[in-house]
């Protein structure tokens, strides 16, 4: 396949065949265990363009007329110009400029991309592919260049609606894990280029996956959370969790809500309240035992740390970051601690650091160092024998490779478990869970199939390899994923491949393991219930 094929009229640029994907270890190396990737239905196919690889994340509508096609092209070029303009894109122009100008296309990054490798090395998923498409479009369509320059730069792509639609989809075939960027000796970041393509679509053309935009950032700004939880619903959930804690540990804990002047405002990904309340409960138990002066918030956005804007739209990202800090300011807390949510870590602590100026610059940190101090410092009575099952650790890209927080969780695990085993590779070289950059929450059309069979495939391989000696379903095993989105992805991945049943592997957060190791607990905190 050639780069210029991106603009060709063809039903699909790539036909995905599962027997060409990367092989998985035992017990998935024999037999037909893997479902077929679903095709779009005939109705969907009529209206939605999936001409890249038969998959749709964006739900891009096919234009109905020549005028609509032209309008798409006009808007895309206008967005491109703004992307390269220091007023409109001061936020990322320098890294974008570097990555567009100085890639020598040595392809060292390709082998570092789990999606490219998992797919059986399909050309369209190569990290440099979409970047090169964008580069050639810019060369040809932005600014006035002479004929000789165009010839020498190989700018042979025609910018038609198919090119745009496929490039938009391609921007959602990369989890922005930035492993490719780590491999680049010249500092080129193809992950960033992917994110910037998403920005053209969102900020100029108003096109983004509905789970990220309409149901994500827009809903969060409107009702307080991308999950749809309202402040009133939150109060009910917290009451339920207090009952649940009482039942599990035999005593009632009051979960502090809107406590004025507390030391710590703990921000969770609101997905925890709905899907993994045991994670929120475990935090409450630990903080209660350790005597931390903390609170949750019931203000709009104050109970949902997520900031999907970080994946696709700078404006939405900034709006949410500011709202989060306004909540902390109102409560007069000393600092914000981010719970087990990778992208919220990176968004709030790192990326928003240059948005939050003057009185908005409230100290923000990860909850992991605090938890480590509590475990290592002896504030909690730990008995690692209570976690006497094999445990492996998934490193969320946002927390580890993109923030440099890798040791606290390891120090904790070494103290609370008896059989902690690393995945290979791990730490900053880890592989993404496959649900990064919003993939874990995109549930529409046939994208979830692709997410499990291709983007999560490398993680599944790593997990299976970590447990190879004890892979039998009779042995309970635990994947510790201190990130809400990663947990969502691992849940879907395990469901897709029926991992829990076939291999007895369970997943959960870090704090659940800490609480499960508490010496004076009457019964285990981890219930091993698949959900």
């Amino acid at each position: 396949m050639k780069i210029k094929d991106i603009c060709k009229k063809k039903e699909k640029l790539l036909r995905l065949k599962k027997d060409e994907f990367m092989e998985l270890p035992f017990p998935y190396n024999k037999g037909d265990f893997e479902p077929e990737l679903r095709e779009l239905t005939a109705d969907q196919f009529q209206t939605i363009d999936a001409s890249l690889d038969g998959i749709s994340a964006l739900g891009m509508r096919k234009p109905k007329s020549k005028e609509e096609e032209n309008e798409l092209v006009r808007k895309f070029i206008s967005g491109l110009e703004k992307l390269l303009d220091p007023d409109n894109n001061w936020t990322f122009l320098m890294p974008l400029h570097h990555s567009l100008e100085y890639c020598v296309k040595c392809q060292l990054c390709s082998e570092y991309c789990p999606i490219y490798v998992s797919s059986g090395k399909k050309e369209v998923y190569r990290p440099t592919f979409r970047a090169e498409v964008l580069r050639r479009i810019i060369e040809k369509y932005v600014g006035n260049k002479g004929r000789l320059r165009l010839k020498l730069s190989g700018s042979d792509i025609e910018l038609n609606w198919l090119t745009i639609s496929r490039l938009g989809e391609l921007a959602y075939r990369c989890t922005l894990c930035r492993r490719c960027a780590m491999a680049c000796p010249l500092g080129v970041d193809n992950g960033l280029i992917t994110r910037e393509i998403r920005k053209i679509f969102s900020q100029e053309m108003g096109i983004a996956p509905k789970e990220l935009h309409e149901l994500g950032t827009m809903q969060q700004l409107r009702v307080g959370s991308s999950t749809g939880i309202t402040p009133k619903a939150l109060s009910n959930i917290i009451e339920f969790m207090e009952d649940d804690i009482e039942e599990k540990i035999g005593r009632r804990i009051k979960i502090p809500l809107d406590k004025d002047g507390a030391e710590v405002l703990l921000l969770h990904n609101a997905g925890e309240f709905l899907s993994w309340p045991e994670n929120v409960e475990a935090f409450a138990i630990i903080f209660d035992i350790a005597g931390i002066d903390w609170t949750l918030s019931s203000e709009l956005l104050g109970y949902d740390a997520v900031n999907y804007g970080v994946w696709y739209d700078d404006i939405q990202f900034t709006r949410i970051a500011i709202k989060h800090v306004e909540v902390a300011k109102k409560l007069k807390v000393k600092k914000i601690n981010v719970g087990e949510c990778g992208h919220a870590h990176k968004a709030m602590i790192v990326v928003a650091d240059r948005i939050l100026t003057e009185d908005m610059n409230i100290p923000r940190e990860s909850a992991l160092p605090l938890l480590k101090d509590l475990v290592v410092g002896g504030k909690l009575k730990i008995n690692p024998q209570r976690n006497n099952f094999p445990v492996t650790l998934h490193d969320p890209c946002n927390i580890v490779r993109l923030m440099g927080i890798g040791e606290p969780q390891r120090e904790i695990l070494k103290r609370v478990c008896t059989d902690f085993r690393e995945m290979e590779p791990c730490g900053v070289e880890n592989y993404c869970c496959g649900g990064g950059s919003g993939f874990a929450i995109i549930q529409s059309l046939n994208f979830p199939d692709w997410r499990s069979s291709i983007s999560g495939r490398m993680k599944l391989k790593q997990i299976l390899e970590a447990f190879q000696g004890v892979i039998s379903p009779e042995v309970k095993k635990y994947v510790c994923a201190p990130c809400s989105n990663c947990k969502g992805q691992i849940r879907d991945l395990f469901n897709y491949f029926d991992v829990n049943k076939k291999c007895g592997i369970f997943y959960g957060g870090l704090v659940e393991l800490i609480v499960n190791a508490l010496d004076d607990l009457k019964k285990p905190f981890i219930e091993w219930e698949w959900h």
Partner: protein
Amino acid sequence: MGVFTYFAYFFIVFMYSVKIVKYIKLPVHLRWELYPIGHEKKSKYGGSYLEEKDWWQKPRKKNTWKSFFSLLREYFVLSDYAKRNITYWIGIYPWHIGFLLIITFHILCFVSGLLLAKGFDVSSRSLGFGSKFLYYGILITGSISFFSGMIGSIGVLMNRIFRRDLREYATPLNFLTYFFTFLVFFTGFYSWFFTDPEFKEYRIFWAGLVTQDFKDVGFWTMIHILSFDLFLIYLPFTRSLHYITRFLAFFLIRWDDEPNIPGGRLEKKLIRLFEKKVSWSAPHIQKGKKWGELARSIP
């Protein structure tokens, strides 16, 4: 030829400077660092100051020299390439060594030109250590550079032709560059090997440049100098500046973990950027507003 050489050097310095200034003057960006970070004391495993509880209350130690030298070392070994793709490295390593040594060769030629202009002798018979050092330095760097660069040019060309993934992404400009570098190194090698084994003509030419009393040189040396001059003029139109922008990318982007301290210089820059007018036109972005106003608006 002397005037043309002056022009070629002036041109490349000017064009590179313009590009570097343009790069550095781009607005400060949001943090987008990637670990491991060279100056971090925990860089061995990719840790950061964010691993500390209450990190903002603790002193932050940056080892900038360590990161600087780790980047510099890479120029001489290209170990990232060697580790990740040895066949690719076999092609580009001699090519890059050719470039590094040809730059050194020219610097030494310039210094020897200065000495010759002052009446010193630069030859194998020179009595002074400096002159002898220059003589042998020129001999070693020139000969290795031309040979290595010539082999490397063929190596990178072969890589681009025979590896499908490299060929597909190569542009005509890439091939022109490989051809050009081969020409430069080949003419240098030929003139050295067959006509001027001691690089005497170069020293005379450079002395002429320094005194502006331009001297004639042999045909092959002239061809090499002319092709090198043309190559200098051509370089700014390629991606060759990655030699320098690599440093910028690591220090200004990939390793830029500088926190925004209240009242600091960075904060002042950011506040000015919030005044920028934004013209994105998606429905959730109100037109005509400044960045700061948009950030506090509700779509």
